[in-house]
């Protein structure tokens, strides 16, 4: 198969998503007349859906009269935006200098092994998203992990199991 044909096939195989746009429309309605409304609209959509579903990008583009490409540029520029669904529980492990010297890489590797997902990936059941981050600002507690807003200092490999077990119990909603 030619290079072009392979590229084309890849695109054709991507599944089309069905997304309920009611909430996105309501968010756009709220900011429609505000100058510089693209950021609050995207933030609102991310809050509502947990990420920015691609069909909402087309909707925002049409209703705010902004090019879809520009929206994509904004979404990929800011790390706060996500184009794929995120887990209910976001596990963040610090790999900043202090944590690094305290063995953060081993914590990371253990999470990888136990969760079966890598950096910036989300488990299939949408329960966990794992991220390596550079410094969470609590170097005294190194090595450090966070799950959503809960902090876990002085992390050990053993604690990884406990954390995963704990959050596997918690509800998905």
């Amino acid at each position, binding site marked *: 198969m030619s290079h*072009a044909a392979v590229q*084309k096939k890849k*695109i054709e195989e991507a599944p089309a998503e069905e997304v309920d746009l009611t909430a996105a429309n309501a968010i756009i309605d709220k900011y429609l007349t505000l100058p510089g409304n693209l950021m609050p609209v995207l933030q609102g959509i991310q809050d509502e859906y947990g990420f920015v579903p691609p069909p909402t*990008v087309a909707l925002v583009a049409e209703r705010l*009269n902004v*090019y879809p*490409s520009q929206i*994509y540029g904004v979404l*990929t*520029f800011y790390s706060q935006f996500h184009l794929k669904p995120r887990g209910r529980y976001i596990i963040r492990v610090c790999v900043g200098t202090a944590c690094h010297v305290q063995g953060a890489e081993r914590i990371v590797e253990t999470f990888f092994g136990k969760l079966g997902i890598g950096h910036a990936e989300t488990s299939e059941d949408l329960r966990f998203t794992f991220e390596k981050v550079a410094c969470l600002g609590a170097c005294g507690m190194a090595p450090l992990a966070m799950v959503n807003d809960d902090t876990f200092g002085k992390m050990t490999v053993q604690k990884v199991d406990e954390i995963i077990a704990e959050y596997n119990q918690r509800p998905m909603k």
Partner: protein
Amino acid sequence: MVNLTIDDKQVTVAKDATIYDAAKSAGIKIPILCHDKKLHPFGGCRMCLVEVEQMKGRLIPSCTTPATEGMIVRTSNEEIVKARKLVLELLLLKHPVDCPVCDAAGDCDLQNLTYEYGVSKNPLSDEKFRWEIDYINPLIERDMNRCVHCGKCARICDEIVSFGAYTFINRGIDAKMGTAFDGPLECEFCGSCVSVCPVGALLSRPFKFKARWWAMQKVKSVCSYCGTGCQLTLGVKDNKVLTTIYDENQGFHNGQLCTRGRWGYQFVNSEKRLTTPLIRKGSALVEATWDEALALVSTKLGEAKSAAAALVTPRLTNEELFLFKKLFTEGVGSENLDHSAGYAHAALTDAALKGLGEAASPSVIADIQKCDLLLVVKSDAYETHPVIGFEINLGVKRQGVNLRIVSDKSGKLSRLPGAQTLLHTPGSELVLFNTLANIIVTEKLVDASAPLLDGYAALVTALSSCTVEKGAAVTGLTPEALVALAKEYAASEKALILMPLGLGYPGHGSALAQSLLNLAMLTGRIGKEGSGVLFMGEKNNSQGAADLGIVPGKNGKDAAGIIDGCIAGTIKALYLVGENPVVSYPDRKKVEAALSKVDFLVVQDLFLTESAAKAHVVLPACSFAEKDGTFTSLGRNVQKITKAIKPVGSSKSDYEIFNKIHAAVTGKPLYASCQALFTEISESVSGYAGLTWAKLGSNGVVRPVTLSPKLVPVVAPAPTAEAGKFALLTGSALNHCGTLSQYGEGPMMVCPEGYVEFGRADVKRLSLVEGDKVTVSSTAGSVTLKAKLGNRLSEGVVFAPYHFNDNSINSIATGAPVTWVSVAKAK
């Protein structure tokens, strides 16, 4: 004005000039990668760094820094050179430096600057990018490994094209130029991005590996597609036109082109070109010599005399059209002469002639950016004349032009900032503009000059019945919207109306044009800068054809009359020059019957078109690239084209062919050159007086008009309507022009066939999917076309472009402004 010193030179520039502009005006070259004179300053590449005495301590980007009074600027010293070298080293760090296989080599800013600054080794080292190269779309190869992040592609696509295909995606070292969702490029394919790319990141795929840049001859010419009159530079090698080359200093459009102009050149060297004359022997067309063919044509035309008729394409040069008219009227003795005027250009040849005394627009292209209010009739100004579309984009976005669109469908222009689109019932344009005129009269918004014009009283009387209420009912607009538009139009100091013409817009071209002229005259807009009406002729020399009177004589038949005459047997010989009426004129069945019936049909064309296949004699003509001559643009700019290659095969230019037939039928000597004909034109055609070949120069001359405005009432029949049927609007597809672009590879790659476009409501109602086959039927016949899903058509309205031979739309459209059709999914 601002005075400053650059490299010890005193420079005086306008207040809004940057240091870069000031240096340029003084002939001092500052290197740039991301700067483009057409775009807003960006300041991304840091190649243009200079030292400013008053701002010492850091180097200053000259392309974004305004020149101020007393500035002392140094454009080169050791520190500056070092800084520029570092910029290049950093760029080369990631760049693949694959110049031997890069088509941009020789015309690459990065390569040239690397050479100029002698960056032969790089103290830095890093991995190269490994971006996947985009080979999906047929026209633009995107190799982001070669990109220098100047952002020009994204900026031009936004600022001038207003499409916005590109953006910077990601951040930091991962940043690259990409599309939405980093997907394949799905755009208009005007190629503006390719033209401004300073390196080989964006390349023309049809030109890939065709020739090294320096090995090509660069020949200046004028585009032979639409009437805009864009200047072109052809890249020529081995008697072949291999590409078009961007020259930012060419024409009013600064080198901007559309798909057809940039990528439609392949028809010139197409393998389908006719290379020898053909004469019919029984059912076959057999190769013949020029002598045989010309003798036969001269004899048959001479015999037919006043029963001869001719339909000539307005794609020919002025000289050819002029010579043909002589040949036909004086030599053959027939007045049955027309171009597509009868169908497509009556706005010029009829309405403007009656209303203004000249078959030309009172306004010029430059008025678009000078007006306060721009009223675009039909949204299709963008589709028919894309580079005029760019002018509209620039006018609205940079000059603050208020854009109002009055159309039966919305379009790309409708999305411009502040644009308002009034969507009216299909076919109700005449009622709409008469209503607007009446509002202007009743609201006492008439300019003091209008009552002095001929026909004022008659117009006011005729308009009195065109009440707002009636107008609103017929057009489907609210009375308030009509009144608001009329008031806004009258209140704007400079107001310009644009009306695209063409074979795709049949029915009421002349009446519509007259109603627009009335509106402009009532408000005193004719003959004023930035105001008036601009009729946008469909073909590259539509204006020339109108100027030279390629219209029926007093007793002659027009295009429709000629077709009827062929069927009735009153026309004995028909000479088609570059016209392909089978595909482009309304009512295909009737046209085919006419061409089959006529005793003698001679077709002179580049290709064996559907019409030529029916001919008794076929004469192979040359393209615009194989001849000298002049075209007159829709803005009345008379411009020269230059012979770039020798005629393909044994084809001859239309000038040469006409010259021989002219000599044969008149017994007069041959013309020595087309320049001699141009001299005759300047002596006999008003508006061309005083023009000489030399005076035209490289930018042409806008020929003047002598106007004698006259108001002519327009009868506005109520639009037709048929319950349960769809209103079919025909027109131009963005990537095509006439039927010629069918032979241009680029346009066919992005728009290979006809289609029928639906709006959202109908898509839902008929559960259509893009590409579904649908059968569209009218009383004249039916065609099966692919469905295109859009969001610009109202419920019950469909659109189809006319350019294509297969399932040609003229099989169902017979020349009415709106054709009523039924639509069903094909099995």
